[in-house]
């Protein structure tokens, strides 16, 4: 049924998008930053990429991954002696021969990128300067790229899935189209309620132990399975005519009310309060909180798109052909909603990146282990004369946020021009 599916043609949209010079450049910036994030260990590392000691060849950066995965261990000579002090026969170093956490004692106390530095070779120079402890700023920025993109991606994945699920459901079914037998509705309400009761109240023992994330996800999984099974049962019983009388479920009103409540909570204050509640908030907690709070905009957008699409002819045709709701949503509606939704995902990414940077800037977000642009920028406050700590991390945040905003803008221009 391909002729039913796509009024917006994707290749055309792509061309429209890339034909805008500014949006194209912004998109390239994001691509480059994504590559930097992926290859960050190969770009800035205190270990050489390849080295030869006493006739034996090593690939320390690759080995680092194996060690992190628990597949291998370091040889004794590498544990006792710093990498920079080893005597190599041959060594190929990454472009920046420092990791984000490497402390260079000789160039501590905020060494300026312009000042003379105590380094043996030009390649070991700190091109963007160092912080109080002598950590290389360029290496920190590269590690921060990974943090920023990871937080943005995961947070948007969470916000996107919740927002799209609720938004499309509200838009597609509206207040009148989800009909079911009172019995099924009753079983559904009681069943879902009980699943959450079991995992949140009966198993509160697990919550005490700090397993709340696992339990929430398990409950989510079970309630989805239960809802699917119930929908199957509902169709079966309606087909063979056991359940004739139906009541309507005002899904749109229910979901709108949830959206209203979540958006009434002041986001920034709530995030600050929650990060203070969790004992040692790690990067995954931050992602989860940002994701759980920022889905409302996406849901609103998905709902509006769905309402627009619902009245289009091709969707009505699909309904006339007698396809099930699930099939219509998945095969015919969702592909067309996803393209415009990219706009709000792009703006959402920029918001999430900004929020993470701000939280680390306040020192409330990530643990000390993770390097973030925000925490690097924060160090500028403690030493006014270290201008490089103020300029470069901020520039990185600005570049990424601006690029995502420009991509969002470019997408919305492209879609505006593609759809009549």
């Amino acid at each position: 049924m391909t002729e039913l599916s796509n009024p917006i043609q994707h290749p055309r949209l792509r061309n429209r998008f890339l034909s805008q010079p500014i949006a194209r450049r912004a998109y390239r910036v994001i691509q480059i930053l994504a590559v930097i994030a992926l290859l960050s260990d190969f770009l800035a590392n205190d270990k050489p990429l390849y080295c030869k000691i006493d006739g034996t060849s090593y690939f320390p950066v690759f080995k680092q991954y194996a060690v992190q995965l628990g597949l291998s261990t370091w040889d004794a000579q590498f544990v006792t002696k710093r990498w920079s002090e080893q005597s190599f026969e041959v060594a190929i170093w990454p472009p920046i021969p420092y990791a984000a956490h490497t402390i260079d004692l000789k160039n501590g106390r905020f060494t300026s990128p312009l000042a003379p530095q105590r380094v043996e070779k030009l390649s070991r120079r700190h091109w963007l300067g160092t912080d109080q402890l002598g950590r290389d700023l360029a290496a920190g920025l590269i590690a921060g790229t990974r943090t920023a993109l990871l937080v943005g991606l995961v947070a948007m994945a969470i916000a996107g899935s919740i927002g799209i699920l609720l938004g499309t459901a509200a838009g597609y079914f509206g207040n009148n189209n989800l009909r079911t037998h009172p019995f099924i509705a009753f079983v559904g309400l009681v069943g879902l309620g009980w699943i959450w009761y079991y995992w949140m109240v009966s198993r509160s023992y697990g919550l005490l132990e700090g397993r709340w994330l696992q339990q929430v996800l398990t409950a989510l999984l079970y309630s989805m399975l239960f809802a699917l099974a119930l929908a199957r049962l509902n169709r079966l019983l309606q087909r063979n005519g056991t359940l004739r009388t139906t009541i309507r479920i005002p899904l749109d009103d229910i979901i709108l009310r949830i959206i209203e409540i979540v958006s009434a909570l002041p986001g920034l204050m709530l995030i600050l309060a929650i990060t203070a509640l969790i004992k040692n908030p790690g990067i995954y907690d931050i992602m989860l909180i940002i994701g759980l709070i920022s889905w409302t905009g996406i849901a609103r957008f998905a709902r509006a798109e769905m309402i627009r699409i619902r009245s289009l002819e091709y969707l009505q045709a699909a309904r006339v052909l007698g396809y099930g709701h699930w099939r219509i949503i998945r095969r015919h509606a969702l592909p067309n909603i996803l393209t415009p939704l990219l706009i709000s995902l792009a703006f959402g990414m920029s918001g999430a990146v900004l929020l993470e940077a701000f939280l680390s800037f306040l020192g409330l977000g990530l643990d000390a282990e993770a390097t973030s642009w925000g925490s690097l920028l924060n160090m500028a406050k403690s030493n006014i004369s270290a201008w490089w700590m103020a300029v470069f991390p901020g520039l990185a945040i600005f570049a990424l946020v601006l690029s995502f905003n420009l991509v969002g803008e470019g997408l919305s221009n492209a879609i505006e021009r593609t759809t009549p």
Partner: protein
Amino acid sequence: MITYFLRRTLLAVPTLLVVSFLVFMLSRQTPGDPVLALQQGSGTATTDYASIELQDQAYRKTATFLGLDKPQFYFSLLPTAYPDSLYRFLYPDKKRALKGLIAQFGNWPRIEAYHQTLVHTERVTYQLPDTLAPDVLKSVRTALRLLHNHYQPERIEASLQDIHDQIAGVPQLSEPLQVLRAAWDAVVADQKVYRNWIPAFRWYGADNQYHHWISGVLQGDWGKSYLDGSNVSTKIAGALRWTLTLNGAAILIAYLLAVPLGVYMAVHAGKKRDQALNVLLFMLYSLPGFWIATLLIVFLTHPEYGMDWFPALGYPPYDPGRSKWEAFWLSSYHLILPVFCLTYGSLAYIARQMRGSMVKVLRQPYIQTAYAKGLPKSAVIWKHAFKNALFPIITLFAGVFPAAISGSFVVEYIFSIPGMGKLTVDAIMAKDWPLVYGILMLGALLTIAGILMADILYTLADPRVGFAKKQKT
């Protein structure tokens, strides 16, 4: 239309109640003991039973004063395994341990018996003379006190075994300990876990913590700060004055600059200068406020780079000798940088919206008609187009305001202005929870008011909105 406004306002009430309930529940999940926070850790380690009793009495008094001896909500839906009155156990650690035991074993009578035996055994150890076996008694007392906080079976077993090994030389204790052991074994042997799976409805009535909290909030009593015992509402009111001044100035300037700029861009839409301005505004919009604030502080407030033009603090030191006029100028001088940081973001946003709205209006046929009548360009733009394009911009205010307040968080924090932002961050860092939840509640109130105002302004600007909604429902 009035009925629509009334209905819209009434609809906000349930939202507000749910939000208040969420904030309240969040406040009860806070780690730490509010009673100890209020007593400021006055409790010292004591050894004799009398002073422990005294301490316990003081604790109970404070807890009662805070209303913590009441049920949390009008009703509860806890499992049938729970007793009616778990809320009467005041110590959070103890309550937590009991909850853990209930969740694992589900048999409250047995658990209660174990708990009472534990209290009794503890009392027995204090009734014995210290001279009997000082070291053993001391360590057994500590072990028993810690046992109150344990809920993992293996840790309780280990602890009981440990005490059993210690009291070999004190025959007076062996019998109470055997009773305790038996009580614990009964808990383990007689499990009724399934009682955790069935919810039970229990009604507590209006004398509950939430009721007292929300009626306090409604009457302006927002609780007391842990730090200095002053009223949360006074603290917030003081901070709110600064935030409102700051944001009022910033939004006013933003509107004054953005509206003509947007009109200018719309009139020249599509030309080079419009495109250039558009990109510039977009960049301004994406500039992180905390970065710009940091840059300004670094470069413009210190002699380090030769540009010591502004004070780093966002407010002047207090001096009663100054005249009002002087004080005003001095405050303005101090507020230039913070207000700038707050302005440029809203400015870019409003100008872009103004441009969009104006471009739309300029495309309308009636503008063509006006030109065709031979009216001068300025008259068409300002009299015919501008008035109609302005409406949606006014409604933006409701959205700009909450955004500006959360933006001023950053700026206030960096420039040390004693407004809401600094108050919040400081309260969170100092774990001053009553203040944190007060601010959270106020933030929710303001956001709901903002949404409500946006809806009402929208309807005023375009009456079709309200009626359309009416028809749908």
